[in-house]
């Protein structure tokens, strides 16, 4: 047995926490506990994002999702969790239908994720086989240099097969939202080169959407004045 791949170890740790607490959300009947389990599950999902190299998305998951959306949800839980509403029971027939649905979806989705062969292992030059023994590592790294990275490609890989630089995605993501795709400057078709097929229009649409939605939410949730109270 070779050395433990710590990336894999932390992947399984976060995956177990995310899936376990995700299932716990379903099983639990207490709405307050469900909110707590959901926080843990989404936090572990942020860890999975970090492990996939998406540092900015992981940070946003923690800040917007866990820090914003779930706090909002917990406010809702606290405002409405009274007496019998804390734990509403579901009838057995509903559970049977739902489990049937879950079985069908699982039989469809999980094998579908495992079919493609090139998805089953990570990138070859991050593999631990190079770092298994010191002498072998020197030999292999002397024989085959890692491929020269092009702009927007992978960061450099040192002789242990571990990327030298951290993948920093915040700046390319921000420029992509403004319409400039600095991560794929080479393979842009000529027709798209002026705009480089960025995400400026979706970004504006989603900004206006968020503004409208928040105004609407504030309007819906305002405290109503009783009709008789009007002086």
């Amino acid at each position: 047995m070779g050395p433990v791949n710590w990336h894999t170890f932390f992947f399984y740790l976060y995956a177990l926490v995310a899936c376990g607490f995700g299932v716990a959300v379903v099983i639990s009947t207490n709405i307050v506990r469900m909110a707590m389990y959901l926080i843990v599950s989404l936090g572990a999902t942020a860890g999975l994002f970090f492990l996939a190299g998406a540092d900015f998305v992981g940070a946003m998951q923690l800040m917007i999702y866990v820090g914003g959306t779930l706090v909002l949800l917990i406010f809702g839980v606290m405002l409405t969790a009274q007496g019998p509403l804390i734990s509403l029971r579901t009838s057995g027939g509903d559970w049977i239908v739902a489990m049937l649905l879950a079985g069908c979806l699982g039989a469809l989705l999980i094998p579908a994720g495992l079919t493609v062969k090139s998805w089953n292992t990570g990138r070859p030059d991050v593999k631990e086989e190079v770092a298994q023994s010191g002498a072998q590592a020197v030999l292999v790294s002397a024989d085959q240099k890692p491929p020269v990275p092009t702009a927007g490609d992978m960061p450099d890989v040192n002789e242990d097969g571990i990327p030298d630089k951290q993948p920093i995605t915040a700046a390319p993501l921000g420029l992509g939202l403004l319409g400039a795709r600095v991560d794929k400057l080479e393979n842009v078709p000529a027709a798209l080169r002026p705009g480089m097929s960025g995400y400026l229009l979706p970004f504006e649409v989603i900004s206006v959407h968020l503004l409208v939605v928040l105004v609407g939410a504030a309007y819906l949730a305002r405290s109503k004045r009783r009709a008789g109270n009007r002086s």
Partner: protein
Amino acid sequence: MQLLTQTVGVSHFLVVGAVLFIAGVVCMAVKRNALGVLMGIELVLNGANINFVAFGSKFLRSDSAYALGLDGQLISLFVIVLAAAEAAVALAITLNFYNNHSTVDVDRADELKG
């Protein structure tokens, strides 16, 4: 433990995403509390987000030239923002329903039934 010495690929992330998606769908189908249904929606969106980020990552597949690149992360950012917007509106509607009916049981919200 052969499991811990191998690298993880896209498929591992897809399986985690599938489990979260299924948990979310069952949660939406089973819960009678409107806020429980909302939590199911959050779980579904997170399962989809894991898939987007995994397809975008260049670390997780042996043919990393075919990875989606930053598009996957951009779309998952959009999903996060849309989830925040959706949660705000759904929560406002739920609170309104609670003010009017003093319950959050979705089975009691049947006034529009023909």
